C-alpha cells in the first residue's frame, strides 16, 4: 500500500486486481468459508503469499487489509517469502526427535522444523510443497511417502468399531466401502428412520466426543436439531494437531467414506444441509484422497441434492488448515473457517447454537463421526457393550515412542494401559524399561512408570492419576530419555502454538519454556515455586491449550522430582 489508495475504513477500495487473480478468487468466492481455499490457491500458484495477493483478496472478500495480513501471519505454514512453499519442513515433534529429526534438519539445506506432523508411526516425515517424504538413514535419500500405515489387526482379539472394516479389501474406494457395509446406515436412516430416531440410537449407545472433551454426541446433535436458525452446519474436526496423535489420519486415509457417511448422517439427524471438513495442513495426501472420495460420493448421489432419492440435501466442503494447533479448538476452528483471526471464542454461547456464521453447528471429531455408521448398523447395545466394566464403547489410541510396536490401536474403554503397552505393543525395546508416558498426546502431561502399570484406559482412571486420556495419544519414553528435556520440548510446542489471546497462556508458556531450558531463579525451591505458580494461573486460561501446558509442568514437578533435582543440581 502506498498510502495513495482510497480507503473506506480498513477496506481496500481501488486496488486493481489482475484478471488471473480474479479467476482464482472466483473459484471459491461464492462458496461458504471461502478464505482458506483462496489463500491456498495463491500459495500454490505463487509458492508464497505475497502482499499483492493479500491486497487482492482483502478487496474482493471485503476483509480489512490489516486484519487479513494479521490472519495470514497467524498460520505457520503460509509462507510470506518467495519460494517458501518449497522449503523442506522436517517434523521435529516429540517422537521424531527420539528418532534423529534434528540431525535430518541439519543435513538438509534450507530445512526448517515443524511441529508434529502426525506420522509418529512412520519414519520421520518432511514436507516439500504438498508432498510428504521420508528420509532413510544413513544415506539421507528422500523417498515419497503417499500412504500411511494401515492399523494392524487387534492383537488382543477384541471386537472393534471404527477399525472393524478398515482392513476390508478396497475399503478406501466407494465400491469397496459399499461391499463392506458402507452406506447401509445412511440408506437405512433416510429410508426408515426419523432424524430423532438416529439421535436416540446415539444417545443410547453412549457415544461421546473422541476429540478430547467427551461431550455426548447424541445430545450435541439434539441441541443443534432444536436450535433455531438456518442453515445449520456440520463441521468435521480433522485438525489433529496434538503431538503423538495420528488416529484421524489413519481413518481418513484408509476409510475416507466412513467420515463422509458419518457427516452426512449428522446432517440428516440435525437438519444441517452443509458440512465442512477441516483438515490439518500437514496431511496433503489425505487431502487428495478426501477430494476424490467426496467427488465419488457426489457422483453416486450420496452427497449433494436429493441423497439416495430421499429429498435430503447435504453439501460437503473440504477446507484445509494452514498450520496452527489452536485451530483444532472448536471456536478457533470456526473463526478460521469464517476467515477471521483464529482466536478461540468465549463460551457460552456454544457452537450448537452459535457456530459457523453464528448459526447452529455440530463440531465433531473424525473418530466420533466414523463410529456413527457402525453404531447405526449394529445397534446401540452392541456399541455400549464393547467397553469393559461400566465403560461404553471403544477408543482409538495412537501409541508411539519407545515401544516395540507403535501404531493405532482400538481399545475397549477400561482396558489396562499395561495390557496395551506390554501385550499388544510388545513392551519396551530390548534392554530398556519404561520411564514415563505422555497422555492425551502431550496435553495430559507425563505419567511415571508406576502409573503406567496401574491406570486403565478411561477418563476417570487417568484423571485419577492427575492426567487425562483426551484424544488418545500416548507417547512412551524409556529409561534412556531425559524427561526434563521432553517436558521442555512439550512446553516449546505449547509456547509456539499459544494463540496469544489470553495472558496466562501467552506469557506463562514462554516463562515455563525459559525455566525448563535452564532459566529462572538459581535456587531450586524458588525455581519450583515459579513453575507451580505459573501452573496455577494456567488453569485460568481461556481455552484448553493453556490448561494443558500447566499439566505438563505440574506433572514434571510432581512425578519426576529426582530428575528435576538432577537438572537443577
Amino acid at each position, binding site marked *: 500500500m502506498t498510502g495513495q489508495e482510497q480507503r473506506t475504513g480498513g477496506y481496500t477500495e481501488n486496488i486493481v486486481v489482475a484478471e488471473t487473480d480474479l479467476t482464482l478468487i472466483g473459484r471459491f468466492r461464492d462458496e461458504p468459508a471461502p478464505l482458506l481455499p483462496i489463500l491456498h490457491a495463491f500459495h500454490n500458484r505463487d509458492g508464497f503469499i505475497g502482499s499483492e495477493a493479500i491486497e487482492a483478496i482483502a478487496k474482493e472478500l471485503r476483509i480489512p487489509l490489516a486484519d487479513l*495480513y494479521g490472519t495470514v501471519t497467524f498460520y505457520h505454514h503460509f509462507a510470506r517469502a518467495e519460494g517458501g512453499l518449497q522449503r523442506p519442513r522436517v517434523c521435529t515433534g516429540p517422537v521424531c526427535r527420539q528418532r534423529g529429526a534434528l540431525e535430518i534438519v541439519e543435513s538438509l539445506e534450507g530445512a526448517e522444523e515443524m511441529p508434529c506432523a502426525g506420522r509418529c508411526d512412520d519414519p520421520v516425515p518432511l514436507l516439500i510443497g504438498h508432498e510428504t517424504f521420508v528420509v532413510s538413514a544413513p544415506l539421507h535419500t528422500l523417498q515419497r511417502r503417499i500412504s500411511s500405515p494401515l492399523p494392524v489387526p487387534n492383537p488382543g482379539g477384541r471386537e472393534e468399531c471404527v477399525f472393524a472394516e478398515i482392513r476390508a479389501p478396497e475399503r478406501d474406494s466407494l465400491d469397496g466401502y459399499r461391499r463392506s457395509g458402507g452406506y447401509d446406515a445412511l440408506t437405512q436412516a433416510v429410508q426408515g428412520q426419523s432424524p430423532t430416531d438416529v439421535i436416540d440410537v446415539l444417545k443410547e449407545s453412549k457415544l461421546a466426543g473422541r476429540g478430547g472433551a467427551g461431550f455426548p454426541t447424541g445430545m450435541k446433535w439434539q441441541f443443534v436439531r432444536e436450535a433455531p436458525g438456518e442453515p445449520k452446519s456440520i463441521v468435521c474436526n480433522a485438525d489433529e494437531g496434538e503431538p503423538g496423535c495420528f488416529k484421524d489420519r489413519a481413518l481418513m486415509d484408509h476409510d475416507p467414506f466412513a467420515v463422509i457417511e458419518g457427516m452426512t448422517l449428522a446432517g440428516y439427524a440435525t437438519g444441517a444441509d452443509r458440512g465442512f471438513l477441516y483438515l490439518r495442513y500437514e496431511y496433503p495426501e489425505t487431502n487428495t484422497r478426501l477430494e476424490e472420495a467426496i467427488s465419488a460420493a457426489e457422483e453416486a448421489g450420496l452427497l449433494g441434492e436429493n441423497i439416495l432419492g430421499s429429498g435430503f440435501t447435504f453439501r460437503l466442503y473440504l477446507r484445509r488448515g494452514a498450520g496452527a494447533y489452536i485451530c483444532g479448538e472448536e471456536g478457533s476452528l470456526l473463526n478460521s473457517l469464517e476467515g477471521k483471526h483464529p482466536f478461540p471464542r468465549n463460551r457460552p454461547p456454544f457452537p450448537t447454537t452459535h457456530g459457523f456464521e453464528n448459526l447452529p453447528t455440530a463440531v465433531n471429531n473424525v473418530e466420533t463421526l466414523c463410529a456413527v455408521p457402525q453404531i447405526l448398523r449394529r445397534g446401540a447395545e452392541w456399541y455400549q457393550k464393547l467397553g469393559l466394566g461400566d465403560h461404553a464403547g471403544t477408543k482409538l489410541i495412537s501409541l508411539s515412542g519407545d515401544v516395540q510396536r507403535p501404531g493405532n490401536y482400538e481399545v475397549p474403554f477400561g482396558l489396562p494401559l499395561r495390557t496395551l503397552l506390554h501385550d499388544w505393543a510388545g513392551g519396551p525395546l530390548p534392554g530398556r524399561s519404561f520411564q514415563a508416558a505422555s497422555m492425551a498426546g502431550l496435553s495430559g502431561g507425563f505419567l511415571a512408570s508406576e502409573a503406567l502399570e496401574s491406570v486403565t484406559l478411561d477418563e476417570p482412571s487417568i484423571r485419577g492419576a492427575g492426567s487425562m486420556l483426551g484424544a488418545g495419544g500416548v507417547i512412551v519414553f524409556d529409561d534412556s530419555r531425559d524427561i526434563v528435556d521432553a517436558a521442555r520440548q512439550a512446553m516449546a510446542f505449547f509456547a509456539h502454538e499459544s494463540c496469544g489471546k489470553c495472558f496466562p497462556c501467552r506469557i506463562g508458556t514462554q516463562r515455563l519454556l525459559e525455566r525448563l531450558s535452564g532459566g529462572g531463579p538459581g535456587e531450586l525451591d524458588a525455581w519450583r515455586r515459579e513453575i507451580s505458580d505459573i501452573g496455577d494461573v494456567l488453569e485460568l486460561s481461556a481455552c484448553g491449550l493453556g490448561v494443558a501446558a500447566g499439566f505438563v509442568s505440574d506433572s514434571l514437578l510432581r512425578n519426576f522430582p529426582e530428575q528435576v533435582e538432577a537438572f537443577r543440581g
Partner: protein
Amino acid sequence: MAAVQHVSIREFGWLCSPSLSGEVSQPQLQQIMASVNQSQQQPKITLDGEQMEFSPGETVYEVATRAGKTVPTLCYDPRLEAFGSCRLCVVEVAGQRTPVASCTTQAEDGMEVTTASAKVEGLRRTLLELVASENREVAVDALRGVASQELGTLVEQYDAGCGRFAGAQSGASRPDDPNPFILRDYDLCISCYRCVRVCAEQEGDYAISIANRGFATQITVEFGGHLQDSACTFCGQCVQTCPTGALADKKALRFAGDGTLNGGS
C-alpha cells in the same frame, strides 16, 4: 494522506467521549436499584455473602461493579464487547472447581460468587507479576494517555513488581513510525488488544490488527508498515484505551515531556 485532515475533528471527539472507568455514579446506581426493586421477579446472585438482583444478560462483572466491588481488569473497556483475555477479573463461583472470568460469565439465578478470596487475590498477583515481567517498565507518565496508569496502579496495588518471572520481553516498539500523533511504544504492550478492538468496534476503521501468535504477537498495520500509510484516521481512540502507555499521545508528551520513546516517564 487525506486521512490526516480529519484529525482535529476526531481529536475533539476523543476529548468528549464518555468516562473510561466503567464505574457508575451514586445517583445512577440509585436509579438502577429503584428500577430493579420495582420488579419482584428479579433473579439474584449472592456476591460476597450479599444478595444482588440482576437483569438477565448482565455479566457477573457488571453486577459486581454495580454493587461497588472493585474487580481488577486489564482487557476490559466498558465500551467494548467483553473479551476475556487478561483473566484478572476471575471470581470464585460455588460449585466450580476453577475461578471463572467474571467479564464473560453471565449472572445466573442463585449463583454464589466470591470476588476476592485469598486464592483469587493470589492468582491475580501472579498474573500481574507475569504481565510486569514482559515489559520494559510499568510506571509511565500519565500524559501518555488517560488509561495509561491502569497497569502500573494494579502492579503497585498487588505488590507485583518485585521482579519474579524475569525473561524475554514481548512487543517491539516502532520508533521508526514518523506520524506526529501516536507514539507506538510496544515494548510496553501487554497484548490486551483493546486498541485493535476499539478501532474496529467503536471507530469502524479496522486500521490495526494482530500479527503472529503467542508471545510473538505484535500490534501492527498491514505489512508491518506505518500508521499514516494505513487506514488509521488518528482519532486517538486506541491511545485513550491503552492501559499501559504503549500507545501514547505524542503531542502531550512533546509539550510536557521530552517526547522520546523512553522519555516522559
